[in-house]
């Protein structure tokens, strides 16, 4: 091979590579999965999302997993996927202009953060909220324990804005929801005493004032003592003593995120849907508590099927 041939061949290959890379730039979407903390539930969800996207046979995504504390400067990605509140905050304040998809963020925190940051800067941001919609939670209660007619809710400062929505959701299911506002953790005990004989079940909603280290034992012991079945929002609260729980697992968060991302990039340029509650759901029963209280709810599979087919 002469030197000239060699130069020509090198030039042709370079042009071909350039052409290929230019062609590819329109098709491969760079994603940064930004984790609030390394490892744990964030890693589990992010890896599931990445695997679902890459294994699905669509070559159009390039996925990078990054801890939010390590992020400095713009990442050049087409979409920032924030896992958790800390990651969302970092994403919102980062110098990137990439649109943001927030996962694993409760609705209230999302609304507070997105309102605070995105509005000012005009960032495209959406979320799949980690919480389950109240209508779905109450529908589960109704399906699992048909004898329940009156539902108590304990709300602190953070969640008092939610109570009207919960009451309305109850009305559409013929459930009378009685919210009790607590101003401090200590008031949880008197509020629980108020519930005695006034409600048939307790719907726990995430509010750090209501469920915390100082109240958890008392919450579980008092409700058991009053024979009040509790619907909780996490698996660990179920194990702690709730009768029933409805939640999305980290794995489900990842799976749902992957589906959402494909939809976002369906037409090439990212288009963000409005924020919405998660559609993923896991129903779990604490059979020891159920049996001890004398309840005999349908199986988890049956309850899940009923919720999934609900309108």
């Amino acid at each position, binding site marked *: 091979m002469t030197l000239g041939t060699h130069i020509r061949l090198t030039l042709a290959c370079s042009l071909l590579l350039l052409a290929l890379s230019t062609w590819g730039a329109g098709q491969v979407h760079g994603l940064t999965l930004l984790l609030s903390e390394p490892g744990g539930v964030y890693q589990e969800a992010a890896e599931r999302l990445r695997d679902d996207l890459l294994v699905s046979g669509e070559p159009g995504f390039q996925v990078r997993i990054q801890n939010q504390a390590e992020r400095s400067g713009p990442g050049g990605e087409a979409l920032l996927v924030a896992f958790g*509140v800390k990651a969302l*905050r970092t994403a919102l304040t980062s110098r990137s202009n990439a649109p943001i998809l927030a996962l694993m*963020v409760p609705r209230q925190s999302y609304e*507070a953060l997105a309102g605070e940051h995105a509005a000012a800067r005009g960032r495209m941001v959406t979320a799949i909220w980690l919480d389950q919609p109240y209508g779905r939670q109450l529908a589960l209660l109704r399906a699992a324990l048909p004898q329940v007619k009156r539902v108590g809710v304990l709300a602190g400062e953070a969640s008092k804005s939610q109570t009207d929505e919960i009451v309305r959701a109850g009305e559409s299911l013929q459930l009378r929801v009685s919210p009790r506002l607590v101003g401090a953790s200590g008031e949880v005990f008197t509020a629980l005493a108020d519930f005695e004989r006034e409600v048939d079940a307790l719907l726990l909603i995430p509010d750090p004032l209501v469920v915390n280290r100082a109240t958890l034992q008392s919450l579980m*012991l008092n409700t058991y003592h009053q024979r009040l079945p509790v619907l909780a929002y*996490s698996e660990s609260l179920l194990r702690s*003593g709730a009768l029933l729980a409805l939640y999305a697992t980290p794995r489900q968060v990842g799976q749902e995120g992957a589906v959402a991302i494909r939809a976002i990039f369906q037409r090439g340029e990212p288009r963000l849907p409005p924020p919405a509650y998660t559609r993923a759901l896991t129903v779990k029963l604490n059979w020891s508590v159920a049996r001890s209280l004398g309840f005999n709810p349908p199986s988890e599979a049956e309850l899940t099927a009923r919720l999934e087919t609900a309108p």
Partner: protein
Amino acid sequence: MFARLTVSLAGLLFIPVLHAAEQGAPAGLPPELPNEADFFAEQPIVLSVSRLARPAAQSPAAVTVIDRAMIEASGFRQLADVFRLVPGFQVGWVRGNLPVVTYQGLSSLYARRMQVLVDGRSVYNPAYGQVHWRALPVALDDIDRIEVVRGPNAANDGANAFQATIHIYTQHAALDRGTEAALSAGENGVLDGIVRHSGGREDLSWRLTYLDRQDDWLDSRYYAQNDGAHERFINLRMDWQASMHDTVTVESGYTLANWDNSTVGYTFSPSQTTDFNSWYVQGSWHRVIDADSEISAQFHHTWTRGIEEFSIPSKLGLGPVSPDNLNFWFQRDALELDVVQRLSATLRMTWGAEARYEAAWSPSVTGKNHTLDGSTYRLSAATEWAPAPEWLFHVGAMWERNYYGGDMLSPRLAVNWQPVHGHSLRLATARAYRTPNILEQNADFKLTEAGFNLDQYLLSPYRLKPERITTRELGYVFQSADNSLALDLRLFHNQVEDIIDFTTPYPVPGELAGNGADLTYANLYRATQRGGEYQLRWKYAPEGWVSLWQSWVYTASDSTDYADSVPRHSLGLLTARELAGGWNTSLGYYRVGEMTWVGFGGPTPAHDRLDLRLAKHWKAGGARWEAAVTAQSVLGKVSEYGPSRYFDPRAFATLRVRF
């Protein structure tokens, strides 16, 4: 000792607790908003397997649960009375300081054939066998629930779980936070005051209870001896969530009682009184491994003393008559280990080990001016196997080495069959032993003057064998789908052998009066009991419920005393209803058929007792208030122990505030 134990457990077990609230919300958010850690943070298992009441359909034995609602509706002031709510139980008041509680009779004024546990601590008197019910530092307001296992249950409840086991569970200190004060006053000198405070800080909860209670129990028109009683006690419970999996509970209490008359059973002078005090401390550690598995260790120490002094006029003119007291003390120390393990989806196992030391000093009735003591060791194991959802097999046994009884093995076999949800059958057989108590084995009670034996009352010349019970039973449990109706039916056959009691006068050389030892302990009798009992609970409306129970027992024995010691029929009814405006009413009716308490009790005619209670609840000034009036025995006077110790109708009022 107790402080060292707590500190060392704390150091050993502390594991940092991860919690959402501790992690703090991210900067930029108001701190109280929820974040994802609220959904994913690990939480301790609060309702672990030992905290959950077992469904009756899965139990290897018949269990009656008395909950707070029943205790409140009953209007009872005394713990002993609460057992009127259990099918087959008899409660008799020998005097105001001496209630007797027994299951299916066979009892003298010392009911000796039950295991009684307060939060796992055995409280019967190892010296005489009975429970000092009035002196237990357990306020009715502090009780979470009482579970009564009817029938022998040594495989689970350990030594002395012979005729029945009473488990009294006090409330976890994290329940009912706040301060409560109540005052009761009424006829027959009823004057009770109680103050309870429950507080907490993060992982630690505590409750302190102080009670002052007094009354004059029996009607002095019929019962000539004084029987006023006054006791004060203080009790502390602390619950500490030491880590995600570990909890430590410490309880301690002290009782001081002043009772007219004797608590031992011998009255020598009208002015005889008993000064009684008792204290205990117990510490337990629980590690919850998962919802089905946990390990726990417990230590407890109890010390009790009774001071009864009197003088007996000289009989011979040679000097003072001895004894001039019936003083006693006893103590119990125990170390226990219990493990609950799920071995597979169908197999669960519990096992336990205990070392117990018991000591008593009672020179007047034992004739020995030194401490009598001994150690007991036990190992117990019980397995539950559920080869199919409708079947549950129980195989269990306890091995025990006792200082008097030697080696004993108490097995139990049971099967639950639940062909349809809500209907369950139980077939069970069990054996248990009751070892002789310290008095039974060592009695030597005599009046002496200047070295002469005036009269020999008690003697234990024989080496006693433990009593043995073998029970077979068939049970049926019904629970309606909405939990409003529950029925528990039990048919049983008991064979009790080697019953320890007093034999006919025993020759005693040198006795000046009497015809030998009046009471000589020996293994004397056997008894066969068959019968049935049921309990029914119906919550007919959210505001009202009714509980009804009956018991029929036919007893055959080679001793007419024992054959007659069990009422053929007994019935109880307790009902409560909430009315508008914060009013509550309740009614308790208790009927016990004719029976004869063994020993000095004498024939007790069939009797009916009706109690009524009316209460009003309201809120004012940020506090909850309750005013109640309780009327007891409104149908007229009743004698529950012998023919003439009358409990006359009485009423008292209670005012309670909680803030």
